């Protein structure tokens, strides 16, 4: 564990140095990558370990985003506290949802969370405190003056999100190796056997769903920080789908692959833009291409690297060894 801590500190240091050397756009994309890392991590915890699937994590992100924005805009709480609140409250909400979810498996859970993703953002229009279509403005504040005059806002976002992502990943890596991680894996591979070994399956599933929701809420709050408003349109159904894609591409069981999934999710809109501009920027292409790329990637990933690139590489290496030996 100490080794891992050192590794994460070193990783943070490297990221900090990189953040100093690239231009503003890249720094901003770095912040988005960090947000996606947390969100995909939450899906890996849920799906890869406890074996539950959620198509509604975009809605949970929206929930966290609204919590954070309300904390800052209405109660004028400090930013860090708003993030903690977002994670906590979304976690509790997820726990309540988890009571229903824990009874379900596979497609039931998928469909229910899908309904959540379609329904929850439209609730925002129902309550005036949530600001309707326009949403709520979240004032991210200026970076502390002690960091110097030239310290840009985007770099400040990058620092915050990266720090959050590093802490989250450190925590995830530890918890997945702990008693809880083992219990969840046992649950996923055979819940009857797990029950016979004394695992309270329902409680463990609710716990996993709740923790995963908390992380999604944190990711949502950070996303809202980087775009400085929270509105229903920032959390479309396609966000939930993109997160699933990111997790499958990363390898649903593989925390190390998270970076890959997050980077791909950030790159896809850019690739789509450049392809669309080559074809003359018609509305048809610009609005459908990102969705096509995400979905096609999802299908290809399921067909060709179903358990992630890590396992595929392992397989290839193994094959080569047995051939030569």
């Amino acid at each position, binding site marked *: 564990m100490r080794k891992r801590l050192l590794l994460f500190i070193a990783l943070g240091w490297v990221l900090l140095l990189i953040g100093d050397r690239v231009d503003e756009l890249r720094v901003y994309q770095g912040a988005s990558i960090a947000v996606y890392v947390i969100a995909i991590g939450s899906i890996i915890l849920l*799906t*890869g370990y406890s*074996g539950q*699937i959620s*198509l509604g994590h975009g809605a949970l992100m929206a929930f966290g985003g609204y919590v954070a924005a309300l904390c800052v805009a209405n109660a004028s709480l400090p930013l860090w506290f708003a993030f903690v609140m977002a994670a906590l409250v979304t976690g509790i909400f997820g726990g309540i949802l988890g*009571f*229903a979810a824990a*009874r*379900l*498996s*596979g*497609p*039931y859970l*998928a*469909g*229910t969370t*899908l*309904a*959540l993703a*379609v*329904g929850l953002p*439209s*609730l925002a*229009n*129902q309550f005036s405190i949530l600001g309707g279509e326009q949403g709520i403005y979240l004032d991210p504040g200026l970076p502390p003056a002690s960091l110097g005059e030239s310290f840009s806002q985007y770099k400040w976002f990058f620092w915050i999100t990266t720090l959050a992502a590093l802490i989250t990943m450190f925590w995830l890596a530890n918890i997945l190796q702990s008693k809880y991680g083992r219990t969840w894996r046992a649950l*996923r591979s055979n819940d009857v056997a797990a029950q016979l070994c004394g695992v309270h399956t329902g409680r463990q599933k609710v716990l996993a769903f709740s923790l995963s929701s908390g992380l999604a809420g944190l990711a949502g709050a950070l996303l809202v920080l980087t775009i400085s408003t929270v509105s229903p349109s920032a959390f479309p*159904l*396609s966000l939930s*789908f993109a997160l*699933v*894609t990111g997790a*499958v591409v990363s390898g*649903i*069981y593989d925390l190390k692959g998270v970076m890959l999934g997050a980077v791909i999710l950030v790159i896809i809109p850019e690739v789509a833009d450049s392809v669309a501009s080559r074809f003359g920027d018609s*509305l*048809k*292409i610009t*609005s*459908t*291409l990102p*969705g*096509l790329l*995400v*979905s*096609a990637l*999802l*299908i290809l990933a*399921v*067909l060709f690297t*179903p*358990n992630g690139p890590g*396992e595929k590489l392992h397989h290839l290496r193994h094959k080569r060894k047995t051939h030569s030996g």
Partner: protein
Amino acid sequence: MYKFISSLLIGLSLGAIYSLMSISLVLVWRSTRVVNFAQAGQAIVSTYIAYEVVNRTGSFWLAFFVAILAGALLCAIVDRYFMRPLFKRVTSGPIVAIAPVVATLGLLGVLRAVVGFVWGVELKPIAAPVSLDGYSLGSEVLPFAPYNALVIVVVAVVLIALSLLFQKTNLGLSLRASAYSPEIARLSGIRVNEIRTLGWAIAGAAGAIAGILATPTSYLSPNSLDILLVFGFAAAVIGGLESMVGAVVGGLVLGLGVTFVSNYVSTSLIFPTAFVFLIVILLVRPSGIVSGKRSRRA
């Protein structure tokens, strides 16, 4: 009173469409243990084809039958050339349990995007074959129109045809047998794989009918049927996901519930209502209101 009657009638016609979508999900689930999230994508493709036919020929009914054929064909292709290779390929690791969900989700996205490429993302109307203006009762104009009545009649005919097919024909028997117990069905000489693809085709046809019936009262866009998918799924779960009768009951219950809430409370509560229905049913009676004995495990 007017409000009550019109809510009842509108609810029925809405519920009829949900029932069809729900049936198409149930049929696939029974035979393959897959909730076909791509059903919304397949229905959108067949509905756009119908749109094209209406535009070219002006005949709603020709378009209706073309859509059914297209929906059935597309669904059979999806089973034969997409799902079957997928099951063959993905056999190990933590992904197995979620692979069907993830794959149909990806397919949904691809089909939506393809439709967007071909027909654009603007809203498109399909003209209804009969009037969309409500019947008038005395001085009041009900929101219930001849088209809504037509929807109820068409769905009723489709349901009767389906139940005859499933209960009275040999084909229906083999469909039910291979869904219930594939191995024993195979031993009895039923070609389970072909029958399964046929089951998918019937499901596709039902989904296509739901798609084209839902469109004249609103607009067509690449994601306009996602809502129908969610409601169809909710209806299927209310009905227990295993039973076709349950699917119809679930669809009607949901249609009526949603209409009454939107007429008496608030129109923006439609989604939350469906969601609450779903959660309450899952908590109180997880096997659905029309339940078999089998427990709810994938």
